[in-house]
């Protein structure tokens, strides 16, 4: 992902901690500790978190960093603004899109390598 903004949305601390902006600081700390414990035990469901771009890997460092970010009210406000929950529906409202002709290369007998 090239976009800095997209990167921020995908690594939003709320998503990393699996919470929403409605969670209080105490709840946030509790969820963070719970996730750290699950990651320490190697539980599969803690190793990734959902984003609008699909699941992303989650590590203990990311969880600690997310908790630190949300402890600061100023930074928390910025993350709340860029919080985008859910795994689907980001393209629901998209307008018209340019569609190409996928058969162009094969029409000319040009192709890619078949996968090994």
């Amino acid at each position, binding site marked *: *992902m*090239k*976009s*800095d*903004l*997209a990167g*921020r*949305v995908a690594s939003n601390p709320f998503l990393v901690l699996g919470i929403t*902006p409605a969670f209080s600081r105490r709840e946030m700390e509790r969820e963070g500790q719970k996730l750290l414990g699950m990651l320490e035990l190697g539980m599969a469901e803690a190793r990734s978190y959902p984003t*609008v*771009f699909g699941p992303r890997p989650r590590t203990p460092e990311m969880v600690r960093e997310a908790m630190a970010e949300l402890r600061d*009210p*100023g930074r*928390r*406000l*910025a993350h*709340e*603004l*860029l*919080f*985008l929950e859910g795994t689907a*529906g*980001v*393209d*629901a*409202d*998209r*307008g*018209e*899109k*340019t*569609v*190409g*002709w*996928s*058969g*162009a*290369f*094969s*029409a*000319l*007998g*040009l*192709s*890619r*390598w*078949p996968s*090994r």
Partner: protein
Amino acid sequence: MALPLAPLIWLAIWLYMRNRKGGAGGVDLSPGFWLFVWIICIWNSVFVAGLLFGGAAVSENPAWALPALAAAVFCFPWTFARWVLIPAGWTRAAYYVLRIPGTTLWKDRRGGALAGAVWAHTRSGRRSPRVDEWLQKKLAALSPLKAGGVAALALSRAAEGEIDFARGLMRLVLAFDRNARPRRILRVAVEWLAAEAATRGDWEAVRAIGSRRGVRTRWTLFASLAARRLLGESRPHALLLRAAWLLAPNRIGSLGLLRLALAGRQDAPVQREEGGLPATFSDLLRLHAALWKEGPASAGDLDRVQLGWSRLFMKGVAGGLRERAAAIAAANAEHVWEEARARIVGDLASMLREHGHSLAALTPSGLTEDIRARLEDEGMEELEHAAGALARRRANQQVLPVHDELVEWCALRDLYESLAGVASNGLRPLAFASVYPAASGHAVWLFNERGERPLGNALLRVLLEEARNAGDVEAERLQAANVAIPI
């Protein structure tokens, strides 16, 4: 008619051997002489092939057909390779048949043969590491690099999925001097570029390629007519489109494009009205995120999103944000709002460059001036940095393999064009001035010191065209003199 063939071949061999020895005994022969010898050989072979086919027909003995077929392959290596060996995926056979001296690839036999071989390998149905290695060795040994070699490299990279780099290389094929660019290779490059643009839905580019005189093929002409219909500008009549399709090769494969074009305009006009746009930050962010998630965003998509953001930011800090700031004891609602605005502007500018859309495609709004400023600041800095790195490498005589030189050149050209293409017209001369000294010095270095005269000349041609576009009279004069130097 066949009688002069033997003495002519002996004369050619004698001259070649004498020439190879060099020194005073060498005879300076122009390539035209060898072409003359070859044409006589070909037509003698055609005559012999005709006799053999005739003999086979009269005697009803099919054994006669074999030498006749061999003579036909010898006479028309490109036709045989293009329609038999390449579709069958016989890589080495395609290479060696195309190495048979012929008029088709006369100007770059080794590179042209390799382009055919790479093409055949991609059609083979399975990728063999041994053949891969063999091809890569042949590609690396090509020197000096001419249009055929660049096309071979482009086909190889395209097959690997490096489409952007392949596009840059195919565009470079068009810039080669006609003495280093076989006509067939030019056709392959032009058709590849049109097909690639059609795949992306860049109908403007398809139309432009098909409208270029001198490099138009029957297929690119059909594709450009289809593109004009899809763009909705001066729609060519359906009958004309059908006629162009009938005249073009690969009719069955191209049926999809014909149907698409006949169905009508694909990309609806950009919706400028503001109605129907999400009104909250979160909804707009969701719409914005869709542009990252899906493939290349159209200018219409970007415009819709930027209009939505512009309307939202015009209203000032959202009341909800202030309330939220108060609730969590954050004192910086304005700062957070401005920071978010700057990020949105930066992201829209990046997407414009990345997807090659012009700033003019966006409806003027409260954000477009900031997007323009961002494009200029970031783009110029990046361009100056890349040009500086190129100049430093040349000054330090850090020689890269010629394929890596091409990677660097294409990256610099992409960077330049992404900036010159999307920002204001006034920026093009500025961008050209910042990249020109390094790019020109590099092309001259390749020409003079690296022995890559055809490639250096092609790069200088690119600079000449761009000097004209940027209105740099001095650079245009200098490059016109440079490209006139024989390769």
